[in-house]
């Protein structure tokens, strides 16, 4: 029965049932909650602008210009010619932040694809089958969580470093290190997601719709991917969104330490490598890429927070 309570949220819940207006669908409710979340809307807009900057910018400035070195133009402070100044070999920083942004954003997105794939696979197997599979997978997950990610990244970067050749993709050459970074970020960050998915599977697999599917002889694979997974999408979407921010940060850290994406391919992270040497003499070297990373991570966090409130209102942020 419905308990009487003074909690305003419960009052709302009680009274929503009695509304005369037609009930909203889940997605309509989610969209309403999201739209009301001002910070999330702000995040979405800033993020869209950052994408426009990185991908639209390449229509204005060419990649060869971004990689063009001219030692006579070393370390020039921002001017009308070079809005963000030039770096230690005379490259235009504005152009490099555009192309660096493309790589950073792409790394963030693709690393999360790997992360999500691994997280879902491992979490689903552990949660669905239970028993020794669960024990083994969860011990490995726990073991991975016990080492701070940056240490794993460094070790992995060293492990895979130089093993992948340069690649051609949509008419451009990427340093093989881009692939390395995507892969190592993906395989060092799936653990939280795996735990979330496992918890979802543990609770959902006892539900009647799953038992019914078993009874009608549906295969395990179908139950996992067609019955349980679609019902656990909300926390996965939220976690994956926030995962993009973490992946972009991870790339920045590892590239900042000089172990990430190798020049001439620019990323916001590797533009900061060696910036400490120019801390005083050329603050524009590190300020612009640093600011762009902060803005990207911030807007994704805002967005993720709004998504959490909209899709998964009962869960709570750390």
């Amino acid at each position, binding site marked *: 029965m419905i308990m009487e309570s003074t909690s305003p949220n419960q009052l709302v819940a009680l009274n929503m049932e009695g509304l005369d207006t037609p009930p909203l669908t889940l997605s309509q409710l989610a969209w309403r909650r999201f739209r009301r979340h001002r910070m999330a809307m702000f995040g979405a807009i800033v993020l869209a602008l950052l994408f426009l900057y990185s991908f639209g910018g390449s229509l204005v400035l060419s990649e060869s210009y971004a990689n063009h070195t001219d030692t006579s133009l070393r370390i020039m402070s921002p001017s009308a010619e070079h809005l963000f100044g030039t770096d230690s070999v005379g490259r235009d920083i504005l152009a490099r932040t555009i192309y660096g942004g493309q790589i950073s954003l792409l790394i963030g997105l693709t690393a999360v694809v790997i992360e999500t794939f691994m997280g879902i696979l491992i979490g689903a197997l552990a949660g669905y089958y239970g028993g020794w599979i669960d024990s083994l997978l969860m011990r490995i997950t726990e*073991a991975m969580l016990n080492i701070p990610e940056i240490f794993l990244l460094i070790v992995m970067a060293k492990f895979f470093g130089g093993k992948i050749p340069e690649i051609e993709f949509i008419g451009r050459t990427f340093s093989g290190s881009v692939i390395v970074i995507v892969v190592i970020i993906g395989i060092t960050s799936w653990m939280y997601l795996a735990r979330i998915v496992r918890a979802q599977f543990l609770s959902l697999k006892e539900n009647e719709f799953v038992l019914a599917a078993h009874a009608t002889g549906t295969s395990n694979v179908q139950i996992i991917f067609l019955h349980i997974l679609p019902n656990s999408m909300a926390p996965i979407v939220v976690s994956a969104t926030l995962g993009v921010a973490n992946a972009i940060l991870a790339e920045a850290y590892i590239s900042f330490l000089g172990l990430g994406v190798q020049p001439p391919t620019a990323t916001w992270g590797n533009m900061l490598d060696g910036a400490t040497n120019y801390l005083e003499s050329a603050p524009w070297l590190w300020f612009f890429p*640093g600011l762009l990373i902060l803005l990207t991570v911030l807007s994704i966090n805002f967005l993720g927070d709004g998504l959490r409130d909209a899709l998964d209102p009962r869960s709570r942020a750390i």
Partner: protein
Amino acid sequence: MIRYIVNRILQGIPLLFIISIILFVLMMNMGDPIATMGGRSITRSSDRVRLTRQLGLDQPVYVQYLYWLIGNDWAKIDLDGDGIKESNGTRRGILRGDFGTSLVNRGKPVTKVIGERLPNTLLLMVASEIIIILGSLLVGIYSALRQYSILDHTITALSFIGYSMPIFFIALLSMYLFAILFKRWGLPYLPTVGMFDPQVGKTTAQVLWHMVLPVFSISIISFAAYSRYIRSTMLEVMSQDYIRTAKSKGLPRREVVYVHALKNASLPIVTVVGLDLPLLLGGAVVTERIFAWPGMGRLFLDHVSRLDMPVVMGILLLIAVAVILFQIVTDIVYAWLDPRIRYD
């Protein structure tokens, strides 16, 4: 309670075992340690072969792991390459506290290499953690009690920025502001590199003065994250029925908040903070690099790049042990705080 503690410690052992296997396999495949050993180029192939045997690199991976784990002083090994195992091994294995010797600093025990740097890192960590915990409790509780006030909104927005801040960016910004601009403006300015000014010497005041910026940089992210977490936890607890009961008894507000609410809120807070704190060591890697702080993080970076596996493994295992220890301590504190577990 004692059984519970013993149980928890026993559970940590297989976990460490798995971690050590994962790390060992990674290490084994990272590259040729001999090629970069000690900075000397080893060109003679006979030297190479001898070194390979000395280090046990000619053995299959599982044998290497076994020797690394429990030592090889009980086994005979083949040092001269004639196929006959004639010499006694000298390693005692990590289980008996022998982490081997550094490849870079030839012959120097790993425990000594790490031991020299560890106190410097601990200095940063302990200072940061005290600031993080006290600060976020203060801010988190304050903004929970004044939910939706202007200050609460400001704190929430700032904590989002702090939480999203890459360590290197806050480090560079704070260095630029407090060291370079302050100097330019004729204000007292903070130092940016090292632990002390060599001209003054390693005095307590010097070290404290040099700690300000690194500690600030390490603290900011966790500080922001925990403030938010503590705020939402306090808000949730404050809406519980037993808080209403406490208020209905006419208890003074400070007792309602700091006894009834905080004691309950401390349960999730202890868990999150306790499990997270050792992971702060990750922040130390970047921070120590930027501020040229002679700690374990920088040691790790230097020795990874030179494939000094014994030292790298030593550091990673040390961290893993620290994390597991913190987990156990967290569980014990939790059980001690929560009568529902304590009395089971």
